[in-house]
C-alpha cells in the first residue's frame, strides 16, 4: 500500500512517498509556510497530483511530524488557558524548581510561564501520598470556580491536584464538573496525562498540554479536511516524541506528546538504516541549519527517556519547561550550518546563536553579515557554490571570505584558511563534547558504535567527528537530506501507559506488580500487537531512576533485580547489592497495526554528471589546500572502495571523507565511511 509521510520543519517541509512492499518511491522538499504550515503541504501535494505523480485515493496511510505544538510553546502563542490546583498550592507552577541555570549570572530570569498567576485557581481538596483523602473534594467550591472560568472565556483548562498520581478521583470529579458547565472547553487532567510524582513537573506537563490542545486540534482538523479535498482520506497518524505514531484523535487529547517529533523521526531512520546494514549500535547525528540533534540506539532500539525539557536557554539543563513525556533520547545543541562565528579572548567561538534561514549565512547573499560555519565550509572548498540545494541556490565564496577575514582571521592574526579551519574545528569540537555526553558519559563506548549522519550539514562533518570520538564507521544514508521524513516511514503505531507506584522490589511485591500491569494494560486499546514493559528503578533513597526493560514475567523479582544491576553498572561503574531497590514508575508500550515500510533506499536519481571532477579543498592532513576528487553520489556503485580525501555530492548535502578514510556504497544505497587510524 502507498504511504505518504511529511515532516514540517522550521525551514523546509520534507516529503516521502513509499510503497510498503517495494520501498520509497520519491522524496522531495519545499520551503515551509510558517504562518499556515498546512498550506505548503497542500500546495505541493496538489501540484504533484496534478502532474500525475501519484493517485491520491491509492494512499492508505498518512504519517506526519510537525513543530506546531513546539512553536506554540516557544512563541507563547497557545490558547487562553487556566490551571485548577489544590487549595494552598497556587504557586507551584510559578515557583518551579528554583535553581539558576547559570550560577554566576544573577540577572537571569526564569522562562516565562505559559500562563500568568491570575490564570491559576484553587479548589478545596487534599489527598495524601498514599492516596487517602485528607480533605474531601468540595464540589460546591469547584462549581463556583468553574462558573468564574466560564465567565472569563478560557479555552482550555488543566487540572493538577497534589498527589493526584496516587488517587485521581478528585481530578476526575473536577473534570466532570467542567464538562458539564463548560462543554466547549478543552480539559487536561494531570492524573490522566501523567500520573507521576513531583508536583511541579506534573503540573508543567498538564499546563503545556492544555496550552496547545485547541491549536493542535484545529490544525489537525483543518489538515485532515484539506487532505480529504484532495481525495487523501486516511486518518492522519502523528509522530510522537517517543518515536511512536498515534492517531490524530489521540494527538488531539495529548498533543504535548508530539513535541520534537521531527527529530525523533530522524533517530528512527538512523536505527532502520543501521538494521539494514546489520549494525545494532548506532549514534545518530542530524546536523541542520540551526541545531544538531544527537541520539543513540542500543541493540537496534532507540533509547527512550522518561522526561523532556522544552524551551531551554542555550540548551542548558534546567532552563526550560519540564515535560513528563517519554521522548527519544536526544541532545540538541546550538551548532548548525548557520551558527555564528566570533572571536572572544583570543579564541574562536561558534554559536549557539544562528543566522537561521533568514538572513542566513553571508554566502547566501540574503543580508547575512556575520560569518557562519557554512561560510567556513564554503571557503574550505567543501561546498560547491553552484550546486547548493541541488543548484537551487548559488553561494558567494568571495563574500564568505571577506566576512571570515573581518570577523575571525584579522582579529586573531590568522590566514583565511586557518580561520575557516578553526571555525570548522571548533564546531566539530562542540559537537564532539555533546556526543561525549550521549556516549561515554552514558556508558556507551564509541568504538562499538557506527555514526549515522544526515541533515543538510551532517555528512560534511561526520567523518572528522567520528575520528575524534574513536567511532570506526560512518553511514551516510540514502536520502540523508530528508532523513526525518524517511524516519516517519520507519515508525510504528505505539501507545504507552505509565503510572507512579513506589514499591520495593522484594518477593512480597509480586501480586502488587501484577495488579499494576493489569491496570495499565487495561488502558491500552484492544487489538494491540507486541507489548513491552519497563520500570524506572533506583536504590531506596536515590532521587533519579534508571529505566529498565522488564522480562516477560514481570513477577520474576530476581530477574528484575539483575536487570537493574546490569544497567546501573553500565551507567556508573559500580553495583551496590546491599541497598534495597525501589521502583517508582511503571510503563507498558504497545505496538498496534501494520508494520512500517521495510526499505528506505531511494530510487535511482538523475546524476550531476560531474564524477571525476576535482576542486581545491582544505585538508590539513594532506598539507592544506589540495586538489580533491569530487564524486556524484548517484553514480556510486556498490563494492568499490574509494579513498579520501574526497567529496561526494548529492542534491541535499555533501559528504566528506578525510585522508585515511575509505568510502563504499552498499546494496541498500547507503554510503559507508571506514574511518582511518587516528592521527
Amino acid at each position: 500500500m502507498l504511504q505518504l509521510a511529511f515532516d514540517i520543519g522550521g525551514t523546509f517541509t520534507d516529503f516521502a512517498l513509499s510503497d510498503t512492499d517495494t520501498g520509497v518511491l520519491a522524496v522531495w522538499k519545499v520551503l515551509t509556510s510558517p504562518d499556515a504550515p498546512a498550506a505548503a503541504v497542500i500546495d505541493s501535494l496538489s501540484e504533484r497530483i496534478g502532474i500525475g505523480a501519484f493517485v491520491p485515493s491509492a494512499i492508505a496511510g498518512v504519517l506526519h511530524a510537525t513543530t506546531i505544538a513546539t512553536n506554540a510553546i516557544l512563541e507563547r502563542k497557545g490558547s487562553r488557558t487556566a490551571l485548577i490546583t489544590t487549595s494552598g498550592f497556587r504557586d507551584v507552577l510559578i515557583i518551579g524548581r528554583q535553581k539558576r541555570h547559570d550560577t554566576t549570572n544573577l540577572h537571569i530570569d526564569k522562562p516565562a510561564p505559559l500562563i500568568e498567576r491570575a490564570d491559576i485557581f484553587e479548589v478545596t481538596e487534599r489527598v495524601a501520598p498514599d492516596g487517602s483523602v485528607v480533605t474531601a473534594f468540595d464540589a460546591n467550591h469547584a462549581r463556583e470556580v468553574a462558573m468564574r472560568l466560564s465567565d472569563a472565556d478560557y479555552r482550555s483548562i488543566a487540572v493538577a491536584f497534589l498527589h493526584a498520581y496516587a488517587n485521581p478521583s478528585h481530578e476526575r470529579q473536577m473534570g466532570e464538573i467542567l464538562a458539564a458547565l463548560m462543554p466547549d472547553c478543552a480539559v487536561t487532567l494531570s492524573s490522566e496525562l501523567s500520573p507521576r510524582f513531583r508536583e511541579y513537573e506534573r503540573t508543567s506537563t498538564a499546563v503545556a498540554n492544555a496550552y496547545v490542545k485547541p491549536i493542535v486540534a484545529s490544525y489537525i482538523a483543518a489538515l485532515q479536511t484539506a487532505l480529504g479535498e484532495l481525495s487523501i482520506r486516511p486518518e492522519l497518524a502523528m509522530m510522537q516524541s517517543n518515536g511512536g505514531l498515534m492517531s490524530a484523535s489521540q494527538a488531539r487529547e495529548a498533543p504535548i506528546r508530539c513535541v520534537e517529533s521531527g527529530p525523533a523521526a530522524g533517530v528512527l531512520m538512523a536505527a532502520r538504516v543501521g538494521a539494514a546494514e546489520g549494525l545494532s549500535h548506532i549514534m545518530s547525528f542530524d546536523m541542520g541549519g540551526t541545531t544538531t540533534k544527537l541520539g543513540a540506539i542500543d541493540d537496534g532500539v532507540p533509547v527512550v527517556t522518561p522526561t523532556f525539557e522544552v524551551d531551554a536557554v542555550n540548551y542548558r539543563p534546567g532552563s526550560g519547561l519540564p515535560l513528563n513525556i517519554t521522548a527519544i533520547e536526544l541532545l540538541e545543541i546550538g551548532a548548525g550550518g548557520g551558527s555564528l562565528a566570533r572571536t572572544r579572548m583570543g579564541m574562536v567561538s561558534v554559536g549557539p546563536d544562528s543566522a537561521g534561514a533568514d538572513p542566513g549565512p553571508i554566502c547566501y547573499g540574503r543580508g547575512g553579515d556575520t560569518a557562519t560555519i557554512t561560510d567556513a565550509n564554503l571557503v574550505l572548498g567543501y561546498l560547491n557554490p553552484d550546486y547548493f540545494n541541488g543548484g537551487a541556490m548559488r553561494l558567494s565564496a568571495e563574500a564568505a571570505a571577506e566576512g571570515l577575514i573581518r570577523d575571525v582571521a584579522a582579529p586573531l592574526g590568522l590566514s583565511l584558511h586557518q580561520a575557516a579551519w578553526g571555525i570548522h574545528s571548533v564546531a566539530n569540537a562542540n559537537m564532539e563534547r555533546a556526543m561525549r555526553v550521549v556516549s561515554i558519559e552514558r556508558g556507551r563506548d564509541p568504538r562499538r558504535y557506527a555514526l549515522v549522519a544526515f541533515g543538510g550539514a551532517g555528512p560534511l562533518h561526520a567523518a572528522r567527528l567520528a575520528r575524534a570520538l574513536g567511532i570506526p564507521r560512518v553511514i551516510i544514508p540514502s536520502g540523508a537530506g530528508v532523513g526525518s521524513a524517511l524516519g516517519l516511514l520507519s515508525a510504528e503505531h505505539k501507545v504507552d501507559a505509565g503510572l507512579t507506584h513506589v514499591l520495593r522490589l522484594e518477593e512480597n511485591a509480586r501480586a502488587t506488580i501484577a495488579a499494576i500491569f493489569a491496570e495499565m494494560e487495561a488502558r491500552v486499546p484492544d487489538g494491540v500487537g507486541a507489548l513491552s514493559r519497563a520500570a524506572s528503578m533506583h536504590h531506596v533513597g536515590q532521587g533519579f531512576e534508571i529505566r529498565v526493560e522488564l522480562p516477560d514475567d514481570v513477577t520474576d523479582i530476581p530477574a528484575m533485580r539483575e536487570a537493574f544491576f546490569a544497567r546501573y553498572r553500565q551507567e556508573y561503574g559500580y553495583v551496590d547489592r546491599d541497598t534495597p531497590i525501589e521502583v517508582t514508575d511503571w510503563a507498558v508500550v504497545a505496538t498496534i497495526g501494520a508494520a512500517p515500510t521495510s526499505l528506505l533506499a531511494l530510487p535511482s536519481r538523475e546524476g550531476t554528471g560531474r564524477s571525476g571532477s576535482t576542486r581545491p579543498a582544505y585538508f590539513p592532513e594532506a598539507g592544506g589546500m589540495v586538489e580533491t576528487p569530487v564524486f556524484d553520489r548517484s553514480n556510486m556503485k556498490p563494492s568499490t572502495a574509494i579513498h579520501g580525501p574526497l567529496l561526494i555530492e548529492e542534491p541535499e548535502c555533501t559528504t566528506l571523507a578525510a585522508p585515511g578514510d575509505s568510502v563504499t556504497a552498499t546494496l541498500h544505497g547507503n554510503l559507508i565511511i571506514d574511518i582511518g587510524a587516528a592521527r
Partner: protein
Amino acid sequence: MSIDPITLTVIWGSLNSITEEMGSALRRTAFSEAVREGQDFSTGLFDASGRLIAQGNFTPGHLGAMPYAVQNVLAYVPPQHLGPGDMLATNDAALGGGHYPDMFLVAPVFTEATVIGYVVTTAHHVDVGGLSPGSQAVQGVTEAFQEGIRVLPVKLVHAGEFDPDLLRVILGNVRLPDKMRGDLMAQRNANHVGGERLRQLFASYGAEAMADAIDVIIERSEERARELIGRLPEGTYSFEDHLDDYGPDTPPIRVAVDVTLKDGEATVDFSRSSDQVPAALNCYMNYTRAYASFAIRVFAGIDLPNNAGIERVIRAIARDGCFFNATWPAPCGGRAAVQVRIFEAINGALAQADPSRAMAAFSHWGNPNIGGIDRSGRPWIMYDLLLGGYGGRADRDGAEALSPVMNCANVPVEVHETNNPVRVHRLEMITDSAGAGQFRGGAGLRKDIELLCDDATLSLLGERHKFQPYGLFGGKAGVPARTVLRRDGMESELASKQVTRLRRGDVVSFRLSGAGGYGDPCRRDPQQVRRDIRNGYISASAARDLYGCE
C-alpha cells in the same frame, strides 16, 4: 606559549565539561534530598600543582572554598603518599567549606606514576551528628565540639575502595548513616568519572600541551578579570547592615564591609563587623572568601568559569576573631544563613560605584531542619530549602522565587510528604510582601508544615525577621520575615534561629521577607501595577498607598 587558539578552545571546553559530567554522576546517584533534589554539591578540577582550573555550575560557597580545601588536604597528606584510586576526605570547617556537613573528597589523577591533576567533589551531607538533626542548629551551640563529627584530612578511599574502619567510625556518629554512605559513594562515582575524562584529555593532547593550555587559561582569565574589574570606577565603597541575632534574645550582628577597587583588583574587608559569636553562625575565612569572591565576580560581570587566575585579583580579608574570620573552635553549623548577606553587603557597597549593575536585597531564604524518630523507630530529617524573590534591578523587577546567591533547587512537596511524617498545608507567594519600587522586588514565600508524628526537633535557619531587605535608589524595603508556630489554635512567633521541640499537630508557618525595590515607586509603569494587582502580587489598597494608583 605556543599553543594555538583552536587547541586551547577545545581543551578549555573539555575541562569545563568534565566538571559538569561529574555533577551529573553525583546528582543521579545521591541518596539525600539535599544532594539529589536540592543539588547542594559542587565539583572541580585542579592541576598537578593544585591550581583550580575548572568548576561546574554549582553552588558558590563550595566552589569558592575548594581551592583552599585542596591545598589544606594536601598539606596533611602530601602527593607522594597517594596512589591511583586514593581519595582524601575532610569536613573540617576551617580547612574546608565552613561547616561540618560539607564533606570534600579530593582524588589525585594519575597517568602511570605521575599525578596530572586532582578531581574534587563537595557535598552537603544531611547530618553529621551533633546537637540536633541536620547539624545546623544555631541556638545552644557554643563550641564546635557540639556540631558533630570532625574529619581532619584522611585517606578515606584506598585504590578505589572505602576504608571500612574509617567509614564505620564516621557513619557511627551520624543520624542517617545510609544517606551519608550513599552520598559518599556518589561522590566517589563522580570523582571516578572526572578522573577518567581528565586522563583521556591528557592522552589526546599530551602533558606538554595540557600544561601550556592550563597556563594560558589561568593567565587569560586573570587578564579578563582585571579588565572587567578595571571598568568599575576606582575607590573604596562601604556598606553596613545587620543580621537579626544569633538565637532568641541575643543582639544583632553588624555586617560592615569596605570594598576597594584599584588597578583592576578588588579587596573586600569585613574587619569592621562584629566579633565572632557564641552560637553556630560564625563564618570561617574560607566561607567569607568564597562568597566575597562570588559577589565581585557577579558584580563585575566576570563571565568565565572560575579558576586560579580569577582568584588572584580578588582578595577577601577580615581581622582574626571577627564574625567573618572566626577562630577555632567557633561553632558554625548555621553559617549558610549568612551567605546572602555577604553578597548583599558587597552589592550595597558597589551600588555606589555602578548603580546599573546593582540589585536591591533578596527575600533572603530559609533552611530549616525538622527531624526525629518516627513511629516505626526510623530516624528522619526533613531538610528544606525555602527560596524567595530577588531584589529589583536597574531595568526590571526582581525575579520571583529563584535560588538567591547560592544555587540549589527546592525539594518537591510530594517528595517531602512521601519520605517524612509531615504535611504541607500551603506553599505560595505572599501578597503585599515585595518592596515597592520603579522595579519592585520579588515576593516573599510562605510554606506551612504540619508535624504528623509525636514529636520532633525544629532547627530554624532564617533571617530578615528584624532587619528588612533593603531597597535601592528610592525603592522600598521588603516586608520582614516571620516564623509562626500554631499549636492548639494559638499562634506564637519564633525567632529566626531558634531551636524548639514540635508536637503532633503543630504547624510551623515560614514566611520569607519580600525582596527590596529599586527606584522611586512613583515612576513605576501603571500598566505593571495593574498587572501586579491582577496577579495578586499586590492588593488594590496597597497599590493605592505605594504607587498612588487604583
